[in-house]
């Protein structure tokens, strides 16, 4: 059987979901009998080839996040929103209570310990969105894997189900939002 091609990315997340995924430890060797990684921080491949599964960590806080998400949707047959931030914005969405200009001023102009205050405007820096959004508000999502982060076993369960051609189903013990 040919291997499933899996891409992963971290948008407005903290990489915690990726770290938790890597908590599968040596099971990754067994997993690699069934999947190969494509675009992912784990491989450093920069763009997606056509993939079977895309794992999206993090929500959308800037324009680059939106482009990456759209590339994933266009390239992956199955897209999974992984973790609290992808699903409802999570911790980054706490900035939605404040105008963007105030957030920037607090971080770059008035914050404690700021030297040479200036708001970054290099063209390389992606423009921030006014509000942080969960990924399902922009593209269709096929499955959700909640948790902050989801436990390693939950990653194994969902990928295992897909490898065996089943609809992913999280048992109650693996369903957590924190």
């Amino acid at each position, binding site marked *: 059987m040919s291997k499933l091609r899996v891409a992963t990315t971290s948008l407005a997340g903290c990489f915690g979901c990726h770290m938790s995924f890597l908590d599968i430890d040596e099971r990754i060797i067994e997993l690699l009998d069934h999947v190969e990684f494509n675009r992912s921080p784990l491989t450093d491949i920069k763009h997606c080839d056509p993939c079977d599964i895309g794992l999206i960590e993090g929500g959308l806080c800037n324009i680059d996040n939106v482009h990456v998400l759209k590339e994933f949707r266009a390239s992956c047959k199955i897209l999974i*929103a992984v973790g*609290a931030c992808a*699903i*409802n*914005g*999570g*911790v980054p*969405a*706490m900035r*939605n*209570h404040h105008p963007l200009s105030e957030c920037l001023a607090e971080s770059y102009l008035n914050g404690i310990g700021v030297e040479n205050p200036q708001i970054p405007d290099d063209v390389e820096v992606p423009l921030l969105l006014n*509000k942080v*959004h*969960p990924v*399902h*508000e922009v593209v269709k*999502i096929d*499955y*959700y*894997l*909640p948790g*902050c982060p989801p436990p390693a076993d939950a990653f194994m369960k969902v990928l295992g189900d897909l490898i065996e051609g089943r609809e992913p189903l*999280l048992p*109650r013990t693996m*369903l*957590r*939002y*924190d």
Partner: protein
Amino acid sequence: MSQSILIDGIEVPFKSNQTIMDAALAANIYIPHLCHNPCIKPHGSCKLCTVEVNGHTTSSCTTKAEDGQKVINNSEKLNKARLTITQMLFIEGNHLCPTCEKTGNCTLQAVAYHLGMLDGHFPQFYPKREVDASHPSIMLDRDRCILCELCVRASREFDKKDVFAIAGRGDNAHLIVNSPSGKLRDSDIEQNDLAAHICPVGAILIKERGYEIPIGCRTFDLRSVTEIDLGDVKLSEKSSHHE
């Protein structure tokens, strides 16, 4: 003559004046609910406890049990509707569980687990709501308030104080505090009031207790909402027995 109703085909006895919810809880049958608490008069606002009675949908916490009623509770259709209601409660507020002190002890979260909620489905409202940290020992974070009015009723019926009320309609509905400044600090609430403890979510919290019990070891981390809820009934039965 003993009277009974049928809940999902199970014969459940009831005493006169009991609601379907009362009868179900006494018989150890779980009907999902958020605005109901056996210590307080029912209110019928969250609609999570919706059941079908002789083919019509109704809130089981406010509907009197009547001899021979056929009640459907645990059906796919009803649980789907309950899931949708729960998703709306999440997206209408700011429920970022990883940042919330109530996580693991929260009934809204536990009900969502019970119903298998994986996502909020609807676009997030991210409403802007006022936090009231003025009181020395009680914190009010309206971001998580689900307008169940348990605190309102507990303060009125139990504490005899009338500290809380809901003002505004629709999107604007919000919890207000009965004090000249509108702040908790200037209200009659005290730390031992039932109103300070009854909130099913993380909207009313006692200060300086944060993370006393680590995440992972909390009420619903260890047991499901079904077990906790039916266990509670047994406890209250026990205490009324001793009275």
